[in-house]
């Protein structure tokens, strides 16, 4: 592509963007008219305004609905892979096979690398990583749902719902505890309970990270004038980045603590104790010699 052609393309792109911007400004405030930014942000944190009906049974937070959809997407994807891709796996992998193997291998190795007794840890962190990553990316697509109040909203990330984050944090803690029991029996429970702040830190780390992302996105999208160029950064790049980071952080922490509480190798004696032990040995040897004399 020559310099002139590049300029021409850039000009066309700028004209199209300008047309969209003018159109957006002329068509009015949009979503901002129905809810104030304060209400939107408060609802993103507390979920007390907009509820979604779960098959007409109960009213739930939109995050739970998003969770079901994300799970559905992942299960369908896994099913398609199982039926059409995995039976055709080759010894020398193709691109897609390589992606699947890398994903599975990453979590499998993470579990093996952090713990001698890893049991189902690899499978758990694989599922958790896939759920967090896909769930976080899910908010990018702006899947629409209608609230019980008849308002159309875009579904947030499942883990930006405090209930989802608590579930993930507590479940990870239980998995860590199961590792403690597998490695040290009853003593493992005590070892895990020593880290009593873990479920809270795991839950609120996830909730805080995803909620902050959701809040920034809400803030940006609330004002049409901010909806150009800026969403590329805050909407796409930040979402992609924190999808990766949060998936990695939770899985890494879970496997690290799992390894720590399931570790059953005896701790090496401290220097002082060792010195004491040597002194006692020397004294007993001296006493033995004296007795022999």
């Amino acid at each position, binding site marked *: 592509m020559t310099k002139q052609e590049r300029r021409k393309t850039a000009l066309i792109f700028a004209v199209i963007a300008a047309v969209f911007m003018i159109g957006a400004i002329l068509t009015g405030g949009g979503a901002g008219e129905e809810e104030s930014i304060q209400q939107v942000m408060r609802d993103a944190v507390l979920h007390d305004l907009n509820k979604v009906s779960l098959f007409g049974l109960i009213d739930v937070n939109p995050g*739970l609905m998003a969770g079901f959809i994300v799970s559905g997407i992942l*299960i369908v994807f896994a099913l398609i892979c199982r039926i059409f891709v995995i039976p055709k796996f080759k*010894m020398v992998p193709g691109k897609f096979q390589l992606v699947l193997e890398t994903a599975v291998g990453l979590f499998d190795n993470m579990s093996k690398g952090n713990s001698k007794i890893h049991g189902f840890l690899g499978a758990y962190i*694989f599922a958790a990583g896939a759920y967090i990553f896909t769930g976080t990316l899910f908010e990018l697509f702006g899947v629409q749902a209608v609230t019980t109040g008849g308002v159309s909203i875009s579904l947030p990330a499942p883990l930006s719902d405090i209930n989802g984050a608590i*579930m993930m944090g507590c479940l990870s803690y239980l998995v860590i505890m199961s590792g403690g029991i597998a490695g040290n029996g009853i003593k493992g429970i005590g070892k895990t309970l020593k880290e009593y702040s873990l479920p809270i830190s795991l839950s609120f780390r996830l909730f805080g990270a995803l909620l902050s992302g959701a809040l920034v996105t809400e803030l940006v999208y609330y004002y049409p004038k901010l909806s150009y160029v800026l969403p590329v950064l805050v909407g796409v790049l930040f979402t992609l980045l924190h999808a990766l980071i949060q998936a990695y952080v939770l899985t890494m922490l879970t496997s690290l603590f799992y390894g720590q509480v399931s570790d059953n190798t005896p701790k090496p004696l401290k220097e002082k104790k060792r010195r004491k032990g040597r002194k006692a040995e020397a004294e007993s040897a001296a006493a033995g010699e004296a007795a022999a004399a």
Partner: protein
Amino acid sequence: MTGVPLNIDWQQILLHLFNFTILFGALYILLYKPVRDFMAKRTAYYADMDTRAEDALKAAEESRASYDEKVRGFDEEVRAERSKLNKEIAESRDRQMAAAKADAEKIVSNARTEAEREKEEIIASAQKEITDMVTGAMEKLTLEQSASDAFDQFLDAAEKEK
């Protein structure tokens, strides 16, 4: 749910848990386990191939060592065989020489005997011829001069000479 901070709802936590449990099970059965099994199978396949290659290499090295050993043994064998053959050749040569010597001695002895015999025959024949010749000559002489006295004298002389 008044009084619970951040509107935490236990029912929804359980629903999230239910959702994630199903997802965990499905991902484990449909994706994680088959892919991991395949990777393990491939690792085993290449490990097996590696073991077989190592075994083959080991066998080749053993075979080479055995070949070298055989070559060394063969050289020894050739040397031993050569020495044995040389010895046999020497023995055979000696035997042949002895036989030839014996044959030669026998031939020489036979030739001597034959020559002696022929010599005696020739001498005998010559004596007989001389005798006949002398006898004839004397007869002639006797007949020419006279008589049988002379002839008898000659016979007596001949008898004396004998």
